[in-house]
């Protein structure tokens, strides 16, 4: 286990370096002169030059990259010109919101997709199977940001059931005290029930919008895995041995579809962290996605660079975790 982890971590290093290079190049390629933007609009040319020199922007590109990496090594991603805070601080403040939303979206997707997938497989070719197929094709076909808008229109504007799309809590509500920054968790453990209900109500629509497209792949995977288990010898044996119904399916089916589902979930959660930008915008969700959106609008170089890097590293780490879990669940992986 330990050596496996070590091997994976070592393999990650060149990729991480490549990722920093791409993030660096993308942000350098963006329009706008960071020195000018930092200096302020009425600064003189000389002052801009001074700032340029202090940031090392007058140096050749490889030298700039070296400076950037030195900062990175000390956990310094620069300062956002838009918020005036360091990018690390900004991201720390916003990350829990995004992670909370993503976790709920995944729980939602799994809760819908796993049972439906098994059910569709068991009733293969029947109505429910066809229904699932249509749902999953639609999940891929509908743009998530559009679905989010339609949900807001129906459940907030027309029906008034959903709370207004103003972020994680009602306006004026006080954020719960707690160690994690996940409002639902924090309010739950500290017993702040009003806040808890409020936070849950606010997370529902974003959760559905973000989770909906993820249902299709997970469901298909579960269905296929279930089918292959159902057609396998040991199920036939189980049947022969008199096992019937739920115990049979649960035991074998879930165990066999688990590795695939874990990989898929990992893939999707990595995707969601980056893909939450538009959903966060629609729901005013104060996460890193909205931060990215606002930073792009203002050409905030350091912030954009930070976000691009963060999303890539998150993705890589999620994969690492997936592999580790995989290796625990499925011994074959370790041998690979």
């Amino acid at each position, binding site marked *: 286990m330990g050596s496996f982890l070590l091997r994976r971590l070592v393999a990650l290093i060149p990729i991480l370096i*490549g990722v920093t290079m791409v993030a660096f190049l*993308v942000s350098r390629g963006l329009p706008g002169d960071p020195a000018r933007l930092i200096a302020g609009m009425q600064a003189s040319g000389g002052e801009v030059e001074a700032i340029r020199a202090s940031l090392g922007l007058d140096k050749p590109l490889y030298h700039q990259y070296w400076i950037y990496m030195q900062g990175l090594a000390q956990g310094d991603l620069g300062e956002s010109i838009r918020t005036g805070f360091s990018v690390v601080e900004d991201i720390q403040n916003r990350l829990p919101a995004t992670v909370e939303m993503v976790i709920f979206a995944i729980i939602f997707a799994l809760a819908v997709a796993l049972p439906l997938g098994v059910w569709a497989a068991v009733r293969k070719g029947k109505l429910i199977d066809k229904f699932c197929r249509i749902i999953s094709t639609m999940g*891929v076909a509908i743009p998530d940001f559009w679905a989010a808008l339609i949900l807001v229109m129906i459940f907030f504007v027309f029906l008034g059931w959903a709370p207004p799309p103003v972020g994680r809590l009602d306006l004026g509500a006080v954020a719960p005290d707690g160690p994690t920054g996940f409002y639902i968790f924090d309010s739950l453990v500290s017993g702040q029930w009003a806040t808890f209900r409020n936070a849950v109500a606010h997370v529902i629509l974003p959760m559905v919008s973000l989770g909906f497209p993820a249902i299709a792949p997970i469901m298909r995977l579960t269905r*296929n895995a279930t089918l292959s288990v159902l057609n396998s010898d040991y199920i036939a044996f189980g049947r022969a041995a008199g096992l019937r119904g739920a115990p049979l399916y649960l035991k074998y089916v879930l165990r066999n579809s688990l590795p695939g589902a874990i990989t898929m979930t990992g893939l999707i959660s990595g995707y969601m962290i980056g893909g939450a930008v*538009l959903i966060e915008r629609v729901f005013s969700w104060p996460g890193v996605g909205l931060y990215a959106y606002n930073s792009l609008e203002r050409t905030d170089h350091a912030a*954009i660079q930070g976000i691009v890097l963060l999303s890539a590293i998150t993705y890589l780490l999620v994969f690492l975790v997936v592999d580790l879990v995989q290796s625990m669940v499925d011994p074959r992986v370790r041998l690979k």
Partner: protein
Amino acid sequence: MTAGSALRKWDRRLLLGVIMFGMMVGVALFAPWIARNDPLAIDFGTQFLPPSAEHWFGTGKLGFDIFARVVYAARYDLVIAISAVAFSIVVGGPVGLIVGYLGGRVDSLTMRGLDIIQAFPAFILAVGVLSALGEGVFNLILVVGFVGVPTFVRLVRAEVRSLREHSYVEAGRAVGNSRRQIILRYIAPGTVGTVVTQAAISCGWAILLTAALGFIGLGVPLPEPEWGAMISEGVEEMVIGGRWWISVFPGMAIAVTIFSLSLIGESIADLVEPTRRKSR
């Protein structure tokens, strides 16, 4: 259930997909005859009309006819998506063929490169690169196509690696074909099936990505119609004034198009390889 009846059922889905997609292509091709109105005609006398016999999908802020714009937008969205996927295939396919066949260092280096690119969420990467390049249809195609390249490299590479060991390839090698001939004559044709399947699915992704970029104001220049940009034009009107038609119809156009592409992709995949594993 016999194999024959299953096949026919897939055929039905394929047919449905092809008809739906063909319809969208037809709409794009014959837009001037279908649209009935100029998609760019400003008319201050007809702002915010709900759908009617005169304006099937209603009108927007500057009096634009939404139906005409949805129809003309099919041109942009389809051309961008199809060209982008073509770009992905033209770049990704040969790379996949070569590294898959050669293996070794070239292969592992290329794969690490792809790991790096794919570590970035497609949307964020596309936004970053497009902001750097500037808007415009050509740049949009480049960016959306670029984001799709790794998928095709991986796909073709995987296919090549399994084909490489096939007996007929061995036979080709034995009769003294050059490396190039083997790749082109024996291996490349074998990858066509999966590439076509993936192309249909990728085309759907490309439309989604294009729309998402249009939604945040990147992509097709003003005031040309594009589905994603049209959705964003109607957000305010929908949430406040209940003028839903501005955003709803372009969203439906996207959904229909991608739905048809998914049908095509899935049914071809099922035809090519009934016991396929999901390719992503």
